[in-house]
């Protein structure tokens, strides 16, 4: 894995979009951490203790963005453990049959957060990377099949078990299907109300209805 190289680490960091909402929410996922160094005056991070400082060996769940900055190449303020769903036992489940797993329940940003975990250079990193790819490949056929064969249907049942990345892919597939259907029925050159205006109207109508009740 070339992920361990210092330069590639920098590249991946500059590639991520600073303003990306998905990325911000994905990096909020918690990771179990153990403090290797005492941290003075920040005892309130650990809500179960009353002491003023964080002692060595305290175990806390820290969000990814904090853990990432505390567990760098040079400084090891904390050591990081893998979250449950990326451990060996779960990887075996994905190996067995990835298509039946409810990824949304395991973490709405399963892939995004998983790739971020590789930053920590855990001994299992290579396995995780391979497993993520494998899981995605297995599920992709199912996602594509579903999104191309549900025209004008209620898709909530179908997208229920998909993680956020997969949902985006599903929506793109649906968009393509709809565009094709429109082309077939010669609806393409029909002028329509803009999306935003239409949504705005719908909401307005709902407000008017509320007011009358």
């Amino acid at each position: 894995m070339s992920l361990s190289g210092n330069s590639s680490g920098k590249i991946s960091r500059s590639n991520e979009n600073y303003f990306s909402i998905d990325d911000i929410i994905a990096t909020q996922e918690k990771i179990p951490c153990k403090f290797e160094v005492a941290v003075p005056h920040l005892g309130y991070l650990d809500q179960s203790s009353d002491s003023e400082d964080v002692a060595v060996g305290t175990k806390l769940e820290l969000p990814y963005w904090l853990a990432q900055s505390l567990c760098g190449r040079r400084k090891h303020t904390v050591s990081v453990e893998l979250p449950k769903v990326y451990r060996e036992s779960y990887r075996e489940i994905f190996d067995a049959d990835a298509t039946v797993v409810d990824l949304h329940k395991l973490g709405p940003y399963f892939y995004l957060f998983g790739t971020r975990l590789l930053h920590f250079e855990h001994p299992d990193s290579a396995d995780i990377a391979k497993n993520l790819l494998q899981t995605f490949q297995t599920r992709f056929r199912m996602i594509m099949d579903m999104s191309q064969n549900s025209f004008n249907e209620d898709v909530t049942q179908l997208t229920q078990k998909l993680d956020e990345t997969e949902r985006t892919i599903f929506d793109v597939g649906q968009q393509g299907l709809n565009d094709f259907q429109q082309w077939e029925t010669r609806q393409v050159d029909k002028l329509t109300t803009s999306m935003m205006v239409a949504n705005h109207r719908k909401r307005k109508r709902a407000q008017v209805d509320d007011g009358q009740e």
Partner: protein
Amino acid sequence: MFGEKALELVKELQRSKTGTISAINEDVMRQVLEEMRALFEQNQRDVTLALAGEQLLFSAIQIRHSALERNKRCLLAYLAGRLNYVRETRWQFGSVLPAEVKQNLSEPELQWFNKYSKCLANYMSSIGGHGGLDLTQDVKPPKTLYIEVRCLTDHGEFETQDGSIVLLKKNSQHFMLRSECEHLVRQGFLEHIVH
């Protein structure tokens, strides 16, 4: 935990991704800025102590520093996300914002909208030879000069380019120049009829 208030803002943005924009959340923004100020002041105090020789403090400084950067990222993403929405409204609603959208924007955002509108208008009049080129027109490839439209609402009188006046009454149908009525269709006053 640090950064939770700031995340609220980002989540709010995510919720309004498809719908209309909600009012700018100045209250939470102020709380986040307050949290940042506190973190910054504590850090400044600790940095002076650390430079005086208290090595232990470095880890605490680093934690606060990442919290500061995280809060900054969330705040900026919130503002940038809203700005994207405002830009999009210029293309979809036209240069006049509906009152419901307007009241949810802050004063700087409105100013930005007006400036953006002006820039776009200047640009559009500078290209395409005499009279400029309206980029918001012909979102779909035009096939005919005239199109048939039906009124969805009472819109009142409409003066066409050749000077005649058309009364746009609900459910009445007209045969109009595409270039003239495209905006009205986009804004939902008229419906394009295709056979």
